[in-house]
């Protein structure tokens, strides 16, 4: 073994040592950096969630000691659903009403906001003058408080408000009382939600679109594909992972909607309970009916609903990574 070889072996060993030490230090630093966020998440996220699960088996009124009731809180939920299915009035089956409304709301909002966000992103991705202005104006609702947005829309949706004024230019006889008519309330809330969230998801789509290679479009152009065909056959398929992401996030947001309903319909869900949601019902159960145990059980139901629906969707449409 030559001297130089021994030397080089030695240096490489010590180098590796240094590298390893560096790695463990990096790991330590990484742990330290995430410790604050993780700590907060454990206390306010996981602890709260597990406590809610625990609470769902107890009867409690905030003051007296907690009393274990087994599955009685869940039985109350299923009684409510059963009554609702058998056609009870909305105020006698509030949880069923909330569930029915929120499913309809999700079915309206999620597809619409996803498609709209994609179209807006396609426009924002063009090289046209003032595109920055459009991007900012689309995104603006995403940084505005939903409560403020809802308050402004209540005003726009009034019977003699701006929205009916615009509609009457096209359909003169159509002037619904959006907020006070149970047939229109949920649609009014959905429109506000779509308006408020499309801009946010547009940014996600825009980022994904900008990562699509220009070559693909150029090849398609040479083959004679027009802009609409290019959008349908190139942009949309290549955006699939982002679509899944947007739909999943949209579903999570829509199923637990609270703020818009609270402001636009009120805590009782407005006329005919048309704006009543599961989140409103959970709130009322906890703070009006003073049954935090039942509220916790209802929130477990909502969690299972959100978890399974998003899981199934992801599983079905997940893009296999090569």
């Amino acid at each position, binding site marked *: 073994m030559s001297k130089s070889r021994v030397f080089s072996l030695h240096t490489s060993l010590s180098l590796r040592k240094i590298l390893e030490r560096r790695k463990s230090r990096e790991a330590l*630093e990484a742990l330290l950096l995430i410790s604050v966020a993780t700590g907060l998440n454990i206390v306010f996220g996981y602890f709260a969630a597990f406590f809610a699960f625990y609470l769902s088996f107890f009867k409690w009124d905030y003051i007296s000691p907690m009393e274990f009731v087994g599955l009685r809180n869940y039985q109350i939920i299923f009684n409510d659903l059963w009554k609702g299915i058998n056609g009870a009035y909305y105020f006698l089956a509030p949880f069923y009403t909330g569930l029915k409304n929120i499913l309809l709301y999700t079915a309206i909002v999620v597809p619409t906001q996803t498609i709209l966000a994609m179209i807006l992103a396609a426009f924002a991705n063009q090289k046209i003058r003032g595109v920055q202005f459009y991007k900012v104006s689309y995104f603006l609702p995403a940084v505005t408080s939903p409560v403020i947005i809802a308050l402004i829309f209540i005003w726009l949706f009034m019977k003699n408000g701006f929205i009916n004024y615009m509609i009457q230019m096209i359909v003169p006889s159509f002037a619904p009382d959006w907020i006070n008519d149970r047939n229109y309330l949920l649609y009014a809330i959905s429109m506000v939600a779509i308006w408020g969230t499309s801009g946010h998801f547009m940014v996600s789509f825009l980022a994904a679109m900008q990562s699509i290679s220009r070559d693909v479009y150029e090849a398609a152009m040479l083959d004679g594909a027009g802009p609409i065909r290019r959008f349908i056959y190139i942009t949309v398929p290549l955006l699939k992972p982002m679509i899944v992401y947007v739909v999943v996030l949209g579903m999570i947001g829509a199923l637990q909607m609270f703020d818009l309903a609270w402001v636009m319909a009120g805590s009782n869900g407005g006329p005919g309970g048309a704006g009543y949601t599961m989140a409103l019902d959970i709130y009322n159960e906890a703070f009006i009916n003073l049954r935090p145990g039942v509220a916790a059980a209802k929130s477990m139901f909502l969690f299972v609903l959100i978890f399974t629906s998003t899981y199934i969707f992801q599983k079905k449409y997940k893009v296999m990574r090569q």
Partner: protein
Amino acid sequence: MKYYKALEKTVSILIIAVILIAAVAAVIWYTTQQQVPEASPSPTTIIKTETQVQTQTQVQTETQTTIVEKMFIRFAGWSAGETEMKNYQRIISLFEQTNPNIAVKYEVITQMFHENILASYGAGVAPDVFYLDTSWAPIFIDKGALYPISDLVSQDFINQFYDFLLEPFKGPDDKLYGLPKDWSMLMLFYNKKLFEQAGLSSPPDTWDELVRYAEIIANKTGKPGLAIYLGGFNRYMPVALSNGASKPWFDDPSDASWFDNPVVKDTMAWYINLYKEGKIERENKGLTPYAVAPQDVGAGWLGDAFGKQEVAMVISGNWMIPFLADQYPDFKFGEDWDIAPVPRGSQGRVTMVYTVALAINAKTEHPDAATKFVEFVLGPEGQKELVVKMGHTLPSVRSLANDPDMWPQHKKSLLFQYDQYQIFLWGPKTGELESKISDVMASAMRGEIGIDEALEAMKQVVQQVLSE
């Protein structure tokens, strides 16, 4: 690279420092918690630590000769605006001057007050003295959350209050668990100018006249005669009681039979029809509605609709008086609008009464200090400042009824004669029942369900709420 390394080093040191500080703080906090006999944080722990700190500072800054053990009590209320908060702060400092060994911490909870208080009981940090609405009183009394205030104050002090205001705060043991801080009652507000335009010289005296006048006003002035809320079980109550219905009390599912009473059925139908016939059917015929909801005339609530002069009459409480004075200063009491008693029915005249008490936490460490404070705030001197001069509500002690500082509108409302004062309290679940029965009423008023269906649904609501 060198710069990066230096930066990395600084960041690491900073993070470690922050964590160390946090750890030390946690240890200190933990050990101070351990010093108190109870392990869980309770209101008493907080009071205790504050007391210690205060004693120390007093020793340092003041004379060093006497050490006064200062007691801290926490007082929580909601606020009817900045003026009220300032007035309370003034009264508190006055109280602290006369009672140098007691300090009061005033905590204003602006939103969802009782929910917050309940949650603070859950967390063991409830205030010593707090506001208590009648509709929440049974919940707090039932759970043993309140100190029996009648054990602490003299009978002479209690005798100063209107008897009917004490009723809702009585426990099953006949002890008092709260003392009313002020009160309001319903009355009829009417717009004199619109009455004049319609050729009417006096306010309606009976329920039938109320509808007739509302219709005349709508026909002659083109403005709705009356505004009511969609729903509002408590606003319907005077109609039922003044026509002979029994006082409602929902404690058991079988109490739903109250809705089987023919008087209740008739009066409920009448009330629902006020809107169904007065708004919906009138509009279908192309006529001006004679009864509307505030939102129908672009108003947020009855006071707003009346102040904007969009309607000629509303039945509302004393709280509307300062609102009108503040928001519509050109719309003058006496010249433009006036008040009258709530219309009477076949069996007399009934009004609704709304009151809020001051209650003492059952777990307070300083019941005597809390009592002193309650006596100071609720006594004639305290109420003169906080209630009479403020002009928001009526004083709960009888001796102030003729106080020269009382607003003329409030004074007039106190002169109205009623056969019955019904307190806003329908049983242990008043809040939930009020909200759900009102929902059913609103649904019927909008014509979504029939009146018989609505009455049946109200019974089901009572049965469901009380059986769960």
